[in-house]
C-alpha cells in the first residue's frame, strides 16, 4: 500500500541501525509513547536489533490500557441495563473490570455492540428511539475529534437517547508524569505521530525545554521508528533537546485546526486517572456543561461504583517504562490474551499483548528467572 510499504525496506533499516550504532558513546533510554509504535517495534523485533547502547522502553500510549477500572465497571453496569444499547470499540470488550468484562455481559444477554466509529453509535440511536444508546468514548487526542463530533451532532439533532461515557486522555501531561517519577530512566521520546497529526507539535516544545529531553514525533512503520530513534540519539549525543518532527508527511506544527476547534468546543481539560498509574493533573477531557444532556455520567446512577483491582498485575510499571512484560510472573501463564489479568494484555497496542502475539513468552532458559 502507498505510504506504507516504502517505509519497510530492510536494507535501509540495516543502514539506519549502523548509523545509530556509530553515534553511540554511552547508553541511552528512549521511550516510544504510543502503543501503535510498541506494536511495530515488537512485531519487527526492532528492540532486539538495536545496538546495545540504546534501549527502547514502552510508554503509556494505549487508551485501552489506561482507561480507569472505575470507568470499565461503570460501562459494565450501564451495559447490563435492559433499555440500553451499549456501543464500544472492539478492543474494550475484553478489558477486565472488577468482576467481569463487556464481552461476558454481551454473552449473558446484554445488548453490547462493537462499533468501528462513533458515527455508527449515532445511527443506532436514530434507529432505536425507544432505547438509550450509550457510546464508550475512550481514547487519546487522535480519537477526540471523532468523539467530539458525535456529541456535537447529537446536540445538533436534539437527540434524547444518545449518551457518551467519556474517558479521554491527553499525552503531554503523561510525559511530564513519566519524567518527574522518582525512578525515571527515560531520556528521550518518540512522540505519538497520530496524536500530533491532530494536535500539532507545538505543545511539546515547553516539555522538551523544561525537562531537557529530545521529543521526536514519528510514524508507525519500521523505518519511521528507526529514523526517529536515530534522531533522538543524535540529539542526546549532541546534548540537544528539541522537538524534531520525523513524520512530516502527516504531522505539521499546528496540527489539524478544524479538529482542535471542535474538540475544545465540546470538551474541557480535567484531571484524569490512568489505570495502573494514578491521577495525572490536566491529563483528560470531559464533556462541557453544554453537553450535559448527553453525558452518561449525569444520566446514569453510576457514581457509587467502587472498583477493586487485581493485585498481581504490574501494568502500571510497564506503562511507565519501569518494567517489561517479561518481568511479570503472570505473563504468558496465568495471564494471556484469552484470559487477561490486566488491560495491557488486551489491546493489540498493549505491551503485554504485543509481546505475547510475537512469541516473546517463549523465553530462552537463561531469561527465565522462575526456572533458574
Amino acid at each position, binding site marked *: 500500500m502507498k505510504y506504507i510499504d516504502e*517505509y519497510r525496506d530492510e536494507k535501509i533499516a540495516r543502514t539506519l541501525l549502523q548509523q545509530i550504532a556509530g553515534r553511540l558513546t554511552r547508553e541511552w533510554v528512549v521511550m516510544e509513547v504510543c502503543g501503535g509504535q510498541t506494536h511495530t517495534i515488537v512485531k519487527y523485533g526492532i528492540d532486539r536489533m538495536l545496538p546495545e547502547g540504546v534501549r527502547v522502553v514502552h510508554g503509556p500510549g494505549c487508551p485501552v490500557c489506561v482507561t480507569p477500572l472505575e470507568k470499565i465497571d461503570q460501562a459494565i453496569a450501564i451495559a447490563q441495563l435492559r433499555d440500553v444499547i451499549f456501543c464500544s470499540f472492539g478492543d474494550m470488550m475484553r478489558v477486565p473490570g472488577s468482576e467481569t468484562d463487556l464481552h461476558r455481559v454481551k454473552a449473558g444477554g446484554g445488548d453490547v455492540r462493537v462499533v468501528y466509529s462513533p458515527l455508527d453509535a449515532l445511527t443506532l440511536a436514530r434507529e432505536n428511539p425507544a432505547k438509550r444508546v450509550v457510546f464508550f468514548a475512550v481514547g487519546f487526542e487522535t480519537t477526540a475529534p471523532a468523539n467530539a463530533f458525535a456529541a456535537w451532532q447529537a446536540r445538533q439533532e436534539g437527540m434524547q437517547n444518545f449518551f457518551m461515557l467519556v474517558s479521554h486522555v491527553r499525552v503531554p501531561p503523561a510525559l511530564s508524569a513519566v519524567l518527574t517519577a522518582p525512578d525515571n530512566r527515560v531520556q528521550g521520546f518518540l512522540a505519538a505521530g497520530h496524536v500530533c497529526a491532530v494536535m500539532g507539535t507545538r505543545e511539546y516544545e515547553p516539555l522538551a525545554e523544561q525537562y531537557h529531553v529530545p521529543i521526536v514525533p514519528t510514524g508507525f512503520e519500521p523505518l519511521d521508528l528507526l529514523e526517529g530513534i536515530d534522531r533522538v540519539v543524535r540529539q542526546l549525543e549532541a546534548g540537544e533537546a528539541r522537538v524534531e518532527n520525523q513524520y512530516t508527511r502527516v504531522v505539521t506544527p499546528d496540527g489539524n485546526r478544524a479538529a482542535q476547534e471542535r474538540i475544545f468546543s465540546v470538551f474541557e481539560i480535567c484531571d484524569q486517572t490512568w489505570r495502573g498509574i494514578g491521577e495525572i493533573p490536566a491529563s483528560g477531557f470531559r464533556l462541557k456543561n453544554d453537553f450535559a444532556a448527553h453525558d452518561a455520567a449525569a444520566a446514569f446512577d453510576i457514581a457509587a461504583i467502587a472498583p477493586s483491582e487485581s493485585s498481581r498485575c504490574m501494568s502500571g510499571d510497564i506503562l511507565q517504562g519501569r518494567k517489561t512484560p517479561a518481568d511479570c510472573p503472570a505473563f504468558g501463564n496465568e495471564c494471556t490474551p484469552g484470559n487477561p489479568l490486566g488491560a495491557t494484555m488486551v489491546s493489540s497496542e498493549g505491551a503485554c499483548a504485543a509481546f505475547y502475539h510475537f512469541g516473546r513468552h517463549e523465553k530462552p532458559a537463561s531469561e527465565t528467572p522462575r526456572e533458574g
Partner: protein
Amino acid sequence: MCLSVPGKVLDISHEEGFRMGRVDFGGVVKKVCLEYLPEIRVGDYALVHVGFAISRVLPEEAAKTLKLLNELGELERGENR
C-alpha cells in the same frame, strides 16, 4: 484502536449536512467523514481514524523523507560492492 491508515479519497459527497467520502485502503473501500479536512480533494491521501479523516498525507513531504531514506540505502549498496 489508535490505528490510523492512509487511504485514497475516491469521491466527496454531502450527507445529513456533513462532508463524507469514499476512501480506498488498498482495495478496501470505506465511507469516511471528511469534516475535518476542508481542503482535501479527490485523489488525495488521507489518514483515517475511527471513521474520520484527521490529516492529509503531504506528498512532497513523503517524497522528501523517502529520498533521504533511499540515499541511505544507496550508501549501503555502494559499500557492499
